[in-house]
């Protein structure tokens, strides 16, 4: 009688003991010691987990910083102050970084013609799979909002003309929109800049047929620029912000109004 | 009367099957007939109440790191008790429920309530919560089994309700269960949204 009660109790106690001791021992041998620097670092990072640094969230970046595999400038979302304090904490030299904001290089939207009617998955990436998208200009924006969904700071909205609008106050320059757009229409430019809102390498005639506001490579901007910052290559005008002296003649002379000024 | 709130919430607002969506595995597998549903519901309620009481009693004593294994041991003990009782006093039910009686131990609902509620509340409140959740689970089971059994077999509790209609067998099989619960949850979502709007 007593054995009938004792056997299960002993059996379970033995099992429990083996597991308990086994686990405790395992923890002793294999337990990883968390670097105390980690907690401080994570608290100094913005915590938005946007992944722009290429690591697995802020924790991943903190890990890389602690191991010396990344520098604070890798985090584009941190403020200057934050980066400076991380530098001080880790004892690295401070790097200066200019603030950039995402700029959208297409002026088509409702001004651009469609080549077919699209009734499919509402995603730019999906639409691009079908003959390069439903716009007559194969370089142009499809307006289905992949960038809107991708932006971790909700800085992008689709405007009334079917084109994305970037809110400069919310944009943190993480670059996710650049990766999200299947037409690569995003670029990170300084706050104050001049840029050409078009990426079409089609000839002037082709562009004019497809869109009323594209770059037709008329070369008026290149001739008008006193600083030589504007160059037209492969039927597309490009502005080199390194040479730009912020005069603005290019904006005035452009016949399709595709060059814009920001800031 | 705040106490009654703990009991009532398990019946509708925080119904474990339809709103929190826990403990689905036995719900779908066992609801092939109403008698199975009732049996499982009662067994689960018993385990819930028993484990909630004990978890609540030891809540101050057990150290943080071994919390979950302790709860699991308590729950497993009650499940074993229920399993043995069923095998002795309701062998037909035990056979038709099969391995789902031992599976009550991994029922998310049981461990979830122990962890989320009983480990922080005094015994009396824990009992009420367990009763509420258990009865909520049981009536959800009865509803699903009633639909599945009547549509899939033409019977309820073994009593034939219609002779003229040829029951679609798939309601008793796996797809029927998933379809039933999908539509029921959608219906309850819809009703809840409508009543909230009022």
């Amino acid at each position, binding site marked *: 009688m007593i054995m009938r009660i004792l*056997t*299960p109790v002993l*059996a*379970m106690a033995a*099992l429990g003991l083996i*597991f308990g001791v*086994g*686990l405790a021992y*395992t*923890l002793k041998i*294999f*337990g*990883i010691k968390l670097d105390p620097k980690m907690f401080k670092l994570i608290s100094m990072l913005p915590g938005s987990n946007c992944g722009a640094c290429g690591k*697995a969230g802020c924790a991943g970046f903190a890990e890389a910083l602690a191991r010396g595999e990344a520098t604070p400038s890798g985090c584009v979302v941190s403020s200057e102050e934050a980066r400076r304090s991380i530098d001080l904490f880790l004892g690295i030299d401070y790097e200066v970084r200019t603030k950039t904001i995402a700029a959208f290089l297409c002026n088509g939207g409702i001004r651009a013609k469609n080549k077919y009617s699209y009734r499919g*998955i*509402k*995603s730019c990436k*999906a639409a691009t799979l079908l003959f390069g998208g439903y716009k007559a200009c194969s370089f142009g924006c499809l307006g289905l909002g992949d960038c809107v969904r991708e932006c971790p700071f909700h800085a992008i909205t689709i405007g009334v003309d079917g084109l994305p609008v970037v809110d400069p106050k919310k944009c943190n320059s993480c670059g996710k929109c650049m990766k999200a757009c299947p037409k690569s229409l995003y670029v990170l430019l300084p706050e104050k800049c001049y840029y050409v809102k078009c990426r079409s390498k089609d000839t002037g005639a082709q562009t004019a047929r497809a869109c009323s506001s594209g770059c037709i490579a008329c070369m008026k901007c290149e001739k008008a620029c006193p600083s030589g910052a504007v160059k037209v290559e492969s039927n597309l005008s490009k502005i080199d912000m390194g040479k730009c002296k912020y005069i603005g003649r290019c904006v005035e002379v452009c016949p399709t109004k595709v060059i814009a000024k920001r800031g | 009367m705040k106490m009654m709130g703990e009991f009532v919430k398990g019946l509708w607002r925080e119904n474990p099957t339809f709103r929190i*969506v*826990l*403990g*689905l*595995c*036995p719900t*779908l*597998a066992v609801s092939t007939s109403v008698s199975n549903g009732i049996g499982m519901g009662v067994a689960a309620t018993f385990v819930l109440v028993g484990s909630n009481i004990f978890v609540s009693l030891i809540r101050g004593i057990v150290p943080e790191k071994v919390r*979950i*294994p302790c709860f*699991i*041991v308590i729950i*497993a003990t009650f*499940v*074993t008790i229920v*399993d*043995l009782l069923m095998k002795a006093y309701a062998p037909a039910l035990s056979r038709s429920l099969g*391995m789902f009686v*031992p*599976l009550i*131990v*991994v*029922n*998310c609902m049981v*461990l979830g309530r122990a962890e989320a509620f009983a480990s922080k509340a005094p015994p009396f409140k824990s009992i009420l919560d367990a009763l509420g959740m258990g009865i909520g689970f049981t009536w959800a089971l009865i509803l699903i089994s009633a639909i599945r059994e009547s549509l899939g077999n033409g019977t309820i509790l073994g009593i034939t309700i219609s002779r003229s209609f040829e029951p679609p067998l*798939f309601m008793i*099989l*796996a*797809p*029927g*269960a*998933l*379809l039933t*619960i*999908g*539509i029921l*949850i*959608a*219906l309850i*979502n*819809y009703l809840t*949204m409508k009543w909230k709007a009022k």
Partner: protein
Amino acid sequence: MDLSTYITIIISTIFINNFILSRFLGLCSFIGVSKNTLPSVSMGLAVTFVTTMASIITWLIYNYILLPYNLEYLRTLSFILVIASFVQFAEIVIQKKAPALYKVFGIYLPLITVNCAVFGAAVLNTDVFFLHGHAVPGSFMKSLIQGFGAGAGFTLAMFIMSGIRERLEYADVPRSMKDIPITFIIASLMSMAFLGFSGFKI
């Protein structure tokens, strides 16, 4: 050591009696985790790993400790302890020894402790491969293969469901059906498709 028996077991566990779509084991994580493909496959791998190892350990305990001492009623208690301890052990070791692997499926390991699929596979092994308190011949290998098949079937179902749900993101689902109800209805269609396997004679 009969290869055809093992193939029968694997095919029946993965397709004919799929753990999620036919036996309803592991539904909570099926509904919860299958929104995107990467977490789904990661969780599936973790479940396969744990189920296989748990099948081995629980078989040994059942055959060498519980049965000889007439302690079958301790099955529930001891099995769940084994699974919980093993998961904890696996998490610690993997985190230290294979951090890349930990990033892939480590975060799902604690969730698997209460996953019906793991416990269900262990219990099923003892129900099917033991007769009258004795192990059926070849029971150990059969249990191991059934455990592995359980996890593999789980992974397959998760993978299919995540693919469908990712596409569903762009569809216009009625508000009361969003998320959970529509997932169940899709699962019911998948289950119907898998029912087609039930007539197989291997």
